[in-house]
C-alpha cells in the first residue's frame, strides 16, 4: 500500500499553519485516502488502479493548498491579490494564448508563494545570486564606463589621438611647431586641436595656490564639438603670441572657487602674476583630458609658443583630430604619412624619420585599463558560475522533495512542458530576485568605492549603473536562471510518475540527481581553485612589487614642487639663487638630514628625455641614437635619495655654483657604452656634432633608479649640475627623521620667508609615490582577494549543503551499519571519503583551470613565473582543507545519531 501520509506531507506544504492544525489536516486526509484505497481494492481494483482512482477523487492539490492557506490568511489577503486572482480567472476562461499567459502568471505567483514558504532556502539562494550577479555588474560598470560607453563628445567615434613618432618608430608627445604644420597641411581632418598640461600660481583669491591648467589651441573645443555652458571659448586671435590673456574655467573650479557666480565671466584671475580675463565656463559634464575630471582651467596655448621650443622639443603636447565626414582612419593615416613626409623633406636636419602615430581616442584613454578589467571580469565570471552552481545544488535537493507532488500533477494530467515551465519559472524568479538585488548591491558599492578607485583607472568618475548595466544584470539572471534551473527541472519532470509514487524518492533518478550534484561540486571546487591560485599569484607578484629594489631609498624623503613665475624670476641666476638659498636654509634646520633640489622627481611621473652622444665615438646611424633620461640636480641629491655611488664622485655644491660641465651617469649608461672601459673622464654631449663647449665630463657612476616604479622600464639616466639648465621649475627634496607634517610645515615656512607670494604645491612623501606606482596592481589584487574569498565561502557552503543532503539520504544505511556493529570512526571515514573523492576530482580539474587563468593574468605578473606549481597546488590543498571541514561536519552528525532512532523514523 502506498504511504499516504508521506504523499500528503510532500504535497501539502503547510509550514505557515500551526503544527497542530497541519497535523490534523494531514491525519484526516490520510485516513480518508486509506479508506478510499481499501474500498477500491475491495471492489477488485489492482493496487495501482486503486491508487489512480483515489488520486482522481482527491482533486487539485495545489488548489486545495491555496484554499487552505487563503482560509488561514483570509484577513491578510490584500485587495490586489484578490483582484489579480479574479483577473487571472477571467483571462483563463477566454482560452488560447491569453490562457497560456494566465498559466504563466499563475506559475509566477506559485513561484513567489514557494519562495515565501521556504525562507531559509530562498534567502540563501537569493543572497548567493546577489553576490554573484552584483559582482559581475560592478566590474561590468567599470568596463562600461572605460571601454564601452562612447566618450561624451558628439560623434566621438570620429576622434583620434595624434602623436609624433621619431626615427625609432616610438610614439612621443608633439612639438608645437610640427602640430601647427600638421594642422595646416592635412586634408583628412575637419579640425585638429592640441593641449598640454601645466600648473600656474593663482594669487588674489585667498591664499596663493597652485591650479592645474590646460593650455590648448582655440580649435580644440571645436574638434571635440563642445560648447561652453557660459560665455565663449578662445578666439583664433587670442591663441597667438601677444593675444589678450584670457581663461576658460571648468565647472568644478567655477563652483568650488568662485561659488558658481555667473558674474565670474568677465572677472579677472591672477595667474603667475598676470591678470587673465575669465571668458567662459565649460559644462558640468565636460571632463578633459577625457580620463580625468580634476582640472581647473584652460588657457590659449599659442600665447606660450616661445616657451614651447622648436621642432625637436616635445613639451608634453597631445593632439586630437576629428576625421572629416566620410574619411576613413586608413585614408587619414596615408594623408598623415604624406604630411609628415613633406615636413621631413622640408626640415631634413630636425625631422629625420618623422612620422605620425594615430589611435582611436577612446582606445587611447582606456589603454592601461583594458587588460586588468577583462581579467577582473573573468574572475567575477568564475564567481558567478560558482554562485549559480551552488543554488542549482540547493534546487536539486529541493526538487527531490517536491517530486511526489510533481508526479501527482503529471498523473492528474499536467503536461510535461507545463511542469518544466512551472519549475523553470521558479528558478528564474529566484535568479531575477538575485539580479535586482545585485544591481542594488552594485549601486551601493560603486557609490562608496568611487573615492577609492578614483586614481586607479581612467574615467572612474563616469562609472554608474546605467540602462545597459541593468539590461546586462537582468539578461544574465534570465540566462543563468534557465541554464542552471533546467537540469533540476528536467530531472524532476521527465520521470515516470508512477515509479515515484510507488517507491518514493530513490531509484534511478536519484542516481542522476546525485551525479548532477556531485558534478556541480566538482565544477565549483575547480573554479574556486583556479580563482584562489590566480589570486595567490597576484599576491605574490604584489609582494615582489612592493619590495622591489628601485635603486633609491624612499623612506623619510619628502618633496615639494615649486614653479617660479617668469614675471618675478626672469633670469636664471635669480631662479638658481632662490633654490640655493632655500636648500641651504632648510638643510641648516635641526632634525633635517639633507636637502637637495632636482628638476625631475623620481616616481612622480615627471621626466625629461634627450638624445646623447659619446665624444670620440663614430656618428650613430639614424634610429640608433641613444636616448637618456636627464636630470639636473643640486649637491646632496644622491644623499637625500639614497642612490648608491658605484665609482667616482657625486655632483657637488661647487659644480652647481660654477656651472661646471660635469655629469654623473648611471650603471645602464656604462653597460651600454663603456662595458670594458673606465667611464670616469669620458665626455658626452646632447647634440651632434658637438662643440668643445657642449661636452660634459663623466665624474661619477651611480646605481640605476626605476623612476617609474618597478613595472615600467626606464631609460638610462644622466645627471648634470642644476645650473646647467634653467631651473624655473624644480622639486625641493628633504631627508629627515622628523614626522612628515613637521617637515612639510618647515618647507612651507622657509619658502614663505624667501618669497611670501610663492606657493608650494602639495608636499609628497616618496614612499607614497612609490606606492602609487603599484596601485593598479594593488587594486586588481584586492578585488581578486575579495572574489576568491567569496568563492571559497560559497564553495564550502555548497559542499556542506550537498554533503548534508547526501549523508541524510544515507542515514538509514549508516544506522544499519552502526547497529550491526560497525565502528563509528570507520563509518565516518567512509562518509568523508565519499565527499573528498568528489572534491579531489574538482581540485584536479581546478589545477588545469588554474593554469589557464594564470595565463590570462600574465600581463599583471611581476617577476614571477606565469604558471607556479607551488601556488596552484597550494590553492588546491587550501580548497581541499576547507572542503574536508565542510564534509566532516555533516558526516560526523550522521554518525553521532542513535541507530535505533534512525531506523524507527526512516
Amino acid at each position, binding site marked *: 500500500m502506498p504511504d499516504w501520509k508521506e504523499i500528503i506531507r510532500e504535497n501539502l506544504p503547510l509550514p505557515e499553519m500551526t503544527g497542530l492544525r497541519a497535523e*490534523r*489536516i494531514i*491525519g*484526516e*486526509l490520510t*485516513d*480518508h*485516502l486509506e*479508506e*478510499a484505497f481499501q474500498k477500491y481494492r475491495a471492489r477488485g481494483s489492482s493496487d495501482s488502479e486503486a491508487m489512480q482512482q483515489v488520486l482522481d*477523487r*482527491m*482533486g*487539485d*492539490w495545489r*488548489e*486545495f493548498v491555496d*484554499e*487552505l492557506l487563503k*482560509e488561514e490568511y483570509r484577513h491578510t489577503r490584500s485587495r490586489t491579490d484578490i483582484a489579480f486572482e479574479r483577473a487571472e480567472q477571467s483571462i483563463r476562461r477566454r482560452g488560447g494564448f491569453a490562457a497560456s499567459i494566465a498559466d504563466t502568471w499563475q506559475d509566477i505567483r506559485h513561484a513567489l508563494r514557494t519562495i515565501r514558504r521556504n525562507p531559509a532556502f530562498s534567502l540563501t539562494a537569493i543572497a548567493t545570486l546577489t553576490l554573484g550577479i552584483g559582482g559581475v555588474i560592478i566590474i561590468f560598470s567599470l568596463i562600461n564606463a572605460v571601454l564601452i560607453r562612447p566618450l561624451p563628445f558628439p560623434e566621438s567615434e570620429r576622434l583620434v589621438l595624434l602623436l609624433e613618432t621619431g626615427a625609432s618608430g616610438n610614439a612621443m608627445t608633439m612639438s608645437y611647431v610640427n602640430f601647427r604644420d600638421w594642422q595646416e597641411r592635412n586634408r583628412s581632418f575637419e579640425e585638429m586641436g592640441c593641449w598640454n598640461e601645466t600648473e600656474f600660481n593663482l594669487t588674489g583669491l585667498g591664499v596663493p595656490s597652485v591650479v592645474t591648467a590646460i593650455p590648448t589651441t582655440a580649435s580644440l573645443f571645436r574638434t571635440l564639438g563642445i560648447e561652453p555652458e557660459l560665455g565663449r571659448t578662445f578666439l583664433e586671435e587670442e591663441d597667438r603670441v601677444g593675444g589678450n590673456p584670457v581663461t576658460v574655467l571648468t565647472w568644478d573650479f567655477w563652483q568650488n572657487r568662485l561659488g558658481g557666480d555667473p558674474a565670474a565671466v568677465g572677472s579677472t584671475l591672477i595667474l603667475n602674476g598676470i591678470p587673465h580675463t575669465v571668458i567662459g565656463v565649460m559644462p558640468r559634464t565636460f571632463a578633459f583630458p577625457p580620463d580625468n575630471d580634476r582640472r581647473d582651467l584652460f588657457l590659449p596655448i599659442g600665447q606660450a609658443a616661445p616657451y614651447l621650443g622648436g621642432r625637436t622639443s616635445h613639451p608634453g603636447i597631445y593632439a586630437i583630430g576629428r576625421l572629416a565626414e566620410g574619411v576613413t582612419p586608413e585614408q587619414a593615416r596615408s594623408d598623415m604619412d604624406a604630411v609628415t613626409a613633406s615636413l621631413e623633406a622640408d626640415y631634413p636636419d630636425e625631422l629625420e624619420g618623422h612620422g605620425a602615430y594615430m589611435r582611436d581616442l577612446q582606445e587611447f584613454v582606456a589603454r592601461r585599463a583594458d587588460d586588468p578589467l577583462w581579467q577582473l571580469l573573468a574572475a567575477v565570471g568564475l564567481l558567478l558560475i560558482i554562485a549559480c552552481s551552488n543554488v542549482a545544488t540547493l534546487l536539486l535537493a529541493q526538487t527531490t522533495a517536491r517530486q511526489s507532488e510533481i508526479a501527482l500533477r503529471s498523473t492528474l494530467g499536467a503536461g510535461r512542458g507545463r511542469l518544466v515551465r512551472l519549475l523553470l519559472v521558479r528558478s528564474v524568479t529566484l535568479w531575477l530576485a538575485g539580479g535586482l538585488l545585485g544591481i542594488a548591491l552594485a549601486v551601493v558599492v560603486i557609490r562608496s568605492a568611487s573615492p577609492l578607485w578614483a586614481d586607479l583607472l581612467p574615467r572612474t568618475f563616469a562609472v554608474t549603473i546605467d540602462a545597459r548595466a541593468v539590461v546586462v544584470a537582468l539578461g544574465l539572471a534570465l540566462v543563468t536562471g534557465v541554464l542552471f534551473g533546467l537540469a533540476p527541472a528536467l530531472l524532476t519532470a521527465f520521470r515516470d510518475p508512477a515509479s515515484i509514487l510507488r517507491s518514493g524518492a530513490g531509484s534511478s533518478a536519484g542516481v542522476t540527481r546525485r551525479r548532477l550534484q556531485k558534478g556541480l561540486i566538482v565544477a565549483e571546487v575547480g573554479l574556486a581553485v583556479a580563482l584562489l591560485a590566480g589570486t595567490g599569484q597576484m599576491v605574490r607578484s604584489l609582494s615582489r612589487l612592493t619590495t622591489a629594489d628601485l635603486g633609491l631609498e624612499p623612506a623619510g624623503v619628502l618633496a615639494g614642487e615649486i614653479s617660479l613665475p617668469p614675471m618675478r624670476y626672469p633670469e636664471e641666476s635669480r631662479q638658481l639663487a632662490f633654490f640655493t638659498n632655500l636648500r641651504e636654509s632648510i638643510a641648516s634646520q635641526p632634525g633635517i638630514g639633507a636637502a637637495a633640489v632636482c628638476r625631475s622627481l623620481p616616481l612622480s611621473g615627471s621626466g625629461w628625455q634627450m638624445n646623447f652622444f659619446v665624444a670620440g665615438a663614430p656618428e650613430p646611424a639614424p634610429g640608433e641614437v641613444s636616448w637618456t633620461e636627464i636630470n639636473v640636480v643640486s649637491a646632496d641629491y644622491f644623499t637625500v635619495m639614497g642612490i648608491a655611488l658605484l665609482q667616482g664622485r657625486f655632483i657637488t655644491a661647487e659644480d652647481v655654483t660654477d656651472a661646471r660641465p660635469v655629469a654623473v651617469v648611471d650603471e645602464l649608461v656604462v653597460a651600454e657604452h663603456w662595458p670594458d672601459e673606465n667611464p670616469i673622464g669620458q665626455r658626452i654631449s646632447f647634440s651632434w656634432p658637438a662643440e668643445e663647449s657642449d661636452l660634459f665630463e663623466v665624474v661619477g657612476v651611480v646605481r640605476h633608479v626605476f623612476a617609474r616604479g618597478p613595472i615600467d622600464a626606464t631609460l638610462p639616466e644622466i645627471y648634470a649640475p642644476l645650473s646647467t639648465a634653467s631651473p624655473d621649475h624644480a622639486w625641493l627634496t628633504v631627508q629627515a627623521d622628523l614626522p612628515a607634517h613637521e617637515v612639510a610645515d618647515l618647507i612651507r615656512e622657509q619658502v614663505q620667508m624667501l618669497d611670501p607670494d610663492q606657493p608650494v604645491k602639495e608636499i609628497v612623501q616618496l614612499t607614497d609615490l612609490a606606492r602609487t606606482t603599484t596601485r593598479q596592481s594593488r587594486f586588481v589584487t584586492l578585488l581578486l582577494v575579495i572574489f576568491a574569498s567569496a568563492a571559497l565561502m560559497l564553495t564550502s557552503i555548497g559542499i556542506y549543503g550537498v554533503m548534508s543532503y547526501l549523508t541524510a539520504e544515507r542515514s538509514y544505511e549508516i544506522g544499519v551499519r552502526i547497529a550491526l556493529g560497525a565502528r563509528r570512526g570507520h563509518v565516518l571515514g567512509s562518509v568523508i571519503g565519499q565527499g573528498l573523492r568528489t572534491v579531489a576530482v574538482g581540485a584536479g580539474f581546478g589545477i588545469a583551470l588554474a593554469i589557464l587563468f594564470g595565463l590570462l593574468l600574465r600581463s599583471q605578473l611581476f617577476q614571477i613565473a606565469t604558471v607556479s606549481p607551488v601556488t596552484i597546488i597550494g590553492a588546491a590543498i587550501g580548497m581541499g582543507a576547507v572542503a574536508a571541514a565542510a564534509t566532516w561536519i555533516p558526516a560526523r552528525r550522521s554518525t553521532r545519531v542513535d541507530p535505533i532512532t534512525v531506523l524507527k523514523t526512516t
Partner: protein
Amino acid sequence: MFSPELKKGSMDLLILSILTEGERHGYAIGQAIEELSEGRIEFRISTLYQTLYRMERKGWISGRWIEKSGERRRCAYALTDEGRTILTRRLKSWHEFTATINKIVGLTHA
C-alpha cells in the same frame, strides 16, 4: 450526475443535514452523501475537506478527536447550536425555493 455548481451550492446543506443524525468523521460524511444519493452525488475529496474546514471556522460544526478501543483515532464532526439554526434557516429557504421552482416548472409543463 449533477453539475458541479449545483453540487457546490448545496454542499453546506447536505453536510449539515447528514450531521443531524449524529457526529461523523469526514470519510463517513462523504460515504453517507454518496450512499443516500445512490451514487449520484460524488465530491472531490479536497472539496469536501475545504467545505468542512470552512464550516468549522464559521462555527456551524465542531470537530474533535475521538478514540474508540480497537479503532484508530479519528476526527469527528458534530453540529453546533449555530449550525442547527443555520440548517433550519437554509432548509426553510430551500423548501421555499424548490416549491417556487416546481410551481413555475409545473405550471409551464402542466
